[in-house]
């Protein structure tokens, strides 16, 4: 059966959901080193939607595309362990400081160069910024339609994709011709677990930079098994206007960042004793807050 070419856009993010007390440095800046780097949760929901298409149409290939520092190759391996076929790490100092628009430009140019896609699936938003902008911005850069807030890719037939969207107050089912961008909500099914066979197959998958650093005994593997080489692309591999990248290409600038400093407004501290609880409820009733 004919398969589809799917690109999953994924991001490695600091796990901002579990921020410990050492997450902030004394000078008020974020201590990124103290936060574990994870596969952005909604991008995993996106990967699962891609894998379900592959289950249904076995000729389907899934490519995980991520932009980030060298270590972001970790999430490409994670994708391979769960059923993706290959990955592209887009990494270059020129991308540093990119806002969502400069990021979507870089990803858009990469996809134009790579070509070869029917459906681009991404998480709705990343937990470090919560902007939900890169998916739609990439769609606009490519001049193709987008379906955001997707919960389920229900069907693909006659060149059209049927998608169920979960919105604040209800659901929509829409049908859209390929190619298109779909961004997936966390209400979509969780991603399947790693597959033991795939872990064995891909555990040595590396980018060129990682191979050079590792300098291990496995180097012969990479010529024998081309699937173990994770593509590592820099600005050299794509056609870009350098003025559109990084800080220069970002219309938004961070003017100021303030650490969150809390000053107590002098709360009444009470215990959970019966006397205190009784007194509290009396007070609230007397000042007409409740009752």
């Amino acid at each position: 059966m004919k398969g589809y070419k799917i690109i999953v856009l994924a991001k490695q993010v600091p796990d901002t959901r579990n921020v410990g007390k050492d997450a902030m440095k004394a000078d008020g800046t974020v201590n990124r080193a103290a936060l574990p780097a994870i596969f952005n949760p909604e991008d995993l929901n996106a990967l699962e939607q891609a894998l379900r298409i592959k289950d249904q149409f076995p000729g389907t290939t899934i490519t995980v595309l991520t932009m980030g520092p060298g270590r972001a190759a970790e999430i490409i391996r994670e994708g391979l362990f769960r059923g993706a076929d290959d990955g592209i790490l887009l990494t270059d100092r020129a991308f540093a400081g990119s806002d969502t628009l400069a990021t979507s430009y870089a990803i858009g140019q990469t996809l134009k160069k790579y070509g070869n896609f029917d459906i681009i699936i991404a998480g709705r938003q990343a937990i470090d910024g919560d902007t939900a902008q890169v998916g739609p911005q990439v769609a606009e850069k490519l001049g193709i339609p987008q379906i955001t807030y997707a919960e389920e890719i229900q069907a693909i037939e006659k060149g059209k994709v049927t998608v169920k969207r979960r919105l604040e107050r209800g659901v929509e089912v829409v049908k859209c011709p390929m190619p298109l961008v779909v961004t997936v909500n966390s209400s979509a099914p969780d991603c399947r677990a790693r597959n033991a066979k795939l872990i064995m197959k891909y555990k040595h998958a590396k980018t060129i930079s990682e191979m050079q650093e590792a300098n291990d005994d496995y180097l012969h593997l990479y010529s024998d098994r081309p699937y173990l080489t994770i593509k590592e692309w820099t600005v050299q591999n794509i056609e870009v206007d350098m003025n559109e990248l990084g800080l220069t290409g970002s219309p938004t600038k961070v003017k100021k960042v303030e650490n969150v400093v809390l000053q107590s407004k002098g709360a009444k501290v009470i215990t959970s004793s019966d006397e205190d609880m009784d007194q509290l409820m009396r007070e609230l009733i007397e000042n007409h807050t409740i009752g």
Partner: protein
Amino acid sequence: MNSVFVYIEIEDGQVAEVSMELLTKGRALATELKVKLEAIAIGYKLDGIEKDIFPYGVDVLHIADDKRLAPYSTLPHTSIVVKLFQEEKPQIALMGASSVGRDLGPRVSSALHSGLTADCTSLVIGDHEDKKQNKEYTNLLYQIRPAFGGNIIATIINPDCRPQMATVREGVMKKEILDSKYKGTINKLDVSKYTSDVDFVVEMIERHMEKSKVNIKGAGIIVAGGYGVGSKENFNLLFELAEVLGGEVGASRAAVDSGYVGHDRQIGQTGTTVRPKLYIACGISGQIQHRAGMEESAQIIAINTDPEAPINSIADYVITGDVAEILPKMIKYYKANTK
């Protein structure tokens, strides 16, 4: 001078709450900048919609009215807004941080190469000096939002690109009519000039929208739970207390993400903003994103096992202890004292 623009979201032929709130904010910004406030309404059968829009102080209302423009669909709405912005060159454009605004905003910003800041909690006008390039900017829009898991508050500016775009959640700005007799002008757009057939390739197969059953925004008393509540079962205690007090149950994002309650109860930067007379925060640590959605509550009771939880700093009453022990006592002594 270039205007302030608000994109009007239409739900069932009505102007959405968030749009009215943004018109109010947009009017204040336009007045400060001494420019016009303009709005764009896109939908079907919009006759008379201006009656609900001009009172917020709108000077020019652009209307695109066509059967194919309702309900909202990404491509035609994008084409209209992009073309109109290219013609009118607004300096500021505001949209709701709803599933519509968050779908449309990035698309428009990408087409116009303008900066967009999502989920702002405050918008103010201010100046900026770029020391590296020795350039001074006056009257920029400061787009203020918590970032990075709420550990920082960032002020974002768009020095060079226009419009300066921002999305804001429903409930963050206050809605206020400026003058019920305010007169603006209407500019009806010729939809065929602003869209093309390729904008209509996405078909709507099914659509079920319902009014939200949960009304946390309008509740006078809110009992809200966080990750510290521990389980879906423990949340029942919150529902019991809310029912006894005549309030509603809210939740932090962590509690919603853990599946304790539904998304419609989420309070905070990425949920609903509330201002009840009493807010009882149960097992909520109080990250800035959560506080952004409730810190204007008249009275706050914080119940937490951690005596140093950030929520305590904005609370009127701090109770250090276990939610499962404290809530039944609150119910018991409320009943005892109201008999």
